[in-house]
């Protein structure tokens, strides 16, 4: 509960001072190009990986990317790129 409140304050602060929200609220940045490429930044790591589903751990939630022939084009300390036939991007809270 208190985490959400802090995030709320952070978001308002970011809006007020025009600062990127992902920096202030420590949020994961997802950048999708069409339906075949997705870039992720500011995440914690991979929880599971199959060619149909990739589960990525964010700071306060999980991101489930499902599709066909999913492949991690690169995986580095800063970001990662997933390519393949993406069908669904799901946020799992908690």
């Amino acid at each position: 509960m208190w985490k959400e409140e802090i995030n709320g304050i952070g978001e308002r602060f970011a809006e007020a001072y025009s600062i990127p929200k992902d920096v202030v609220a420590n949020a994961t940045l997802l950048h999708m190009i069409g339906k075949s490429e997705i870039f992720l930044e500011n995440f914690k790591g991979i929880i599971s990986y199959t060619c149909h589903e990739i589960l990525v751990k964010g700071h306060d939630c999980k991101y489930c990317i499902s599709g066909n022939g999913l492949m991690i084009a690169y995986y580095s300390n800063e970001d990662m790129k997933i390519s393949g036939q993406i069908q669904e991007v799901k946020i799992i809270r908690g």
Partner: protein
Amino acid sequence: MQNKWTWYVKGYLTIRLHGDYVERFFNMCRMHDIFLWNIKKEEKDFYCSIAAKDYFETIPLLKKTKTRANVIHKNGIPFYVPFMKKRVLFFMSLILCLAMLYLVTDYIWAIEFIGNLQISNEELEDFLEEEHIFYGMKKEALDCEATEKRLRSCFPIVTWTSIYFEGTKLYVEVKENEKTEPVIEEIQGTNLVATEAGTITSIITRNGVPKVKIGDVVEIGQVLVDGSVPIYDEAQSIIDYQIYNADADVTIQTQMTYREQLERTHPLIQYTGNEHKSIFMEAFGYHIESPVLGRGFQGCERITQKHQVCLLENLYLPIYYGNICEKEYHLQYLEYSEEEMKNLLNDNFEKFILCLHEKGVQIIEKNVKIKKYNKGMELNANLSVIKPTGEEVEITEIIPGTDKKE
């Protein structure tokens, strides 16, 4: 992220991973700043690419996550070093060849003229020679724009020109004035002088003052039409001279001689049918020719076909190749009969007469004699002809005319 070529230069591995905690291994790699790419899963195994130098750093992580790794493929230049070590000479010559190619492409090795119809290739070649543009010169040394300007000023008929390179070839592209309007010449002032000695038979003056009349006997170099026209005042005395280019149709009756000797014995080339073919190569002033067995014809005709090496359409190199064909012949000396000699001399004389007719020369009288001499026969002809005369010569001094207008 570094690009594909950087990884290729540094060397990278394609590995297969198997285990229950491979995702954890990926996360640990990430925490240790080990870059992974092309991660994919096929059945139970994971495949990924990793930099060769990072692979040894992953060994403790593999142990910790109980993951088994197999190297599937080694890629990149570092893995070719042992292969290259065994073939040092090959790679050295390859590098040398590339270096030579790089050096050679800085020079001009071919020149082509485009669009010249009235100006001949030889004239353009002469112009380039004057401009010190030649095969084998450095491209940098050529100032295309300045040369274009000079080309336009040198050939007034050229309305547009472009000098450019494609590979090692220099293109000289010109556009000539298609309308054949006569170029207005600046009046410099010229006299018309006689080119032969003889008697004037007709004179029609367009410009200038005629200095001779029909029936006058003239010498070579004598002024026929004067380009300086006197201007008279009201008292009919000369106050000044106006300078023109003298122009007139003048014909002169003069004598011409024709003499031709024909020797009785004449050589005739007879091919034996023996021929030798060889190939050759030329580079940087060196000529290498394939040896031919039995070479050594005393008399032979040599036909050479030469080609320049050209890469990728326009990259001409200073290397030439081709073939040489030598055909053996013997010289056989034959003798003409008197009849043949007479016919030949007469034929040649007829051709000469025809040539004179084409030039507008009218023959009034001809005296032809054929006589024998110790080696053969000769034809002597004296012709009395009426032909156009007059050559433009620049006015150096004004010939004083009469003070009073006639």
